[in-house]
């Protein structure tokens, strides 16, 4: 029994399980910026950004969330840096 408890604890610590977390402000902003750029470009069909939105897979556990938060923060910084004309939805 102690062995089972130990294994389950180890997996939990490893980040395989964990409480869901809320969408980060950075991912909220990155999604909004992509949508705004799409509107400007008249991109038509919206991009599938499901994993990044509130309740998306990114927020299933802290380990996944950590990667998504970094990804959105870097993605947003790059969008702001590389688009000469930023729509309102992309501005800080």
């Amino acid at each position, binding site marked *: 029994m102690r*062995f*089972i408890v130990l*294994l389950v604890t180890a*997996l939990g610590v*490893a*980040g*395989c*399980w964990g409480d869901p977390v809320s969408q980060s402000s950075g*991912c909220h902003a*990155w*999604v909004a910026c*992509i949508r705004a750029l799409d509107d400007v470009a008249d*991109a038509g*069909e*919206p*991009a*599938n*950004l499901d*994993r*990044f939105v509130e309740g*998306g*897979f*990114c927020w299933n556990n802290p*380990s*996944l969330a950590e*990667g*998504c938060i*970094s*990804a*959105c923060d*870097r*993605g*947003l910084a*790059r969008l702001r840096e*590389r688009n000469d004309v930023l729509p309102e939805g992309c501005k800080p």
Partner: protein
Amino acid sequence: MRRTWPLLLILFATPALTHVPARLHADAVYVLPRPEVSSALFGEFLTGAEHFVVKVTHATRFGAPIEILVPHQADLFTHRPAWAVVGPGLPAPNAEELAALPAPLPAGFGAVVDLNQVDPRPVIFESVMRRFYWTSGPLAVVLPKGESELWIWSPGHTRGKFGLGYGVEEGGGYMAALQEWSFYAY
């Protein structure tokens, strides 16, 4: 035997999923079988001149984080493989990125490029392989509708292993990771 069944339970019945692992070879284009789920694509630069190509097809434009990992070993400190998403509808890369690409961009294609230059170099603990890796830092990108390619190369022609992390929705299990564990887990 009493200690075997909990291990089997964990391997087969827990909800713990992983990125789907696969091994890349520089002499063959790898077609990502399930681009809607996350992948960990491992390869090795034996000469430093290799150009790994992964074909990805999405029914709609698809947002995903991408990062490249390198085993956290002293002799790989300067090994910084780069990656790019190459396809139609993507932005033009800047001059430095364009010059660094391992092949000319096809006509009408753009690219999102990460030359793996974040400094200081971030380190992560990867919980499936149970290993430390340097990471380029994940970057959220929107892949184009239809076919695009992931390119992986070594701008400094350094040699060594790498792993490309792609996507979020985990669809693999520990058993898949065990198939080539000795390669994946450096």
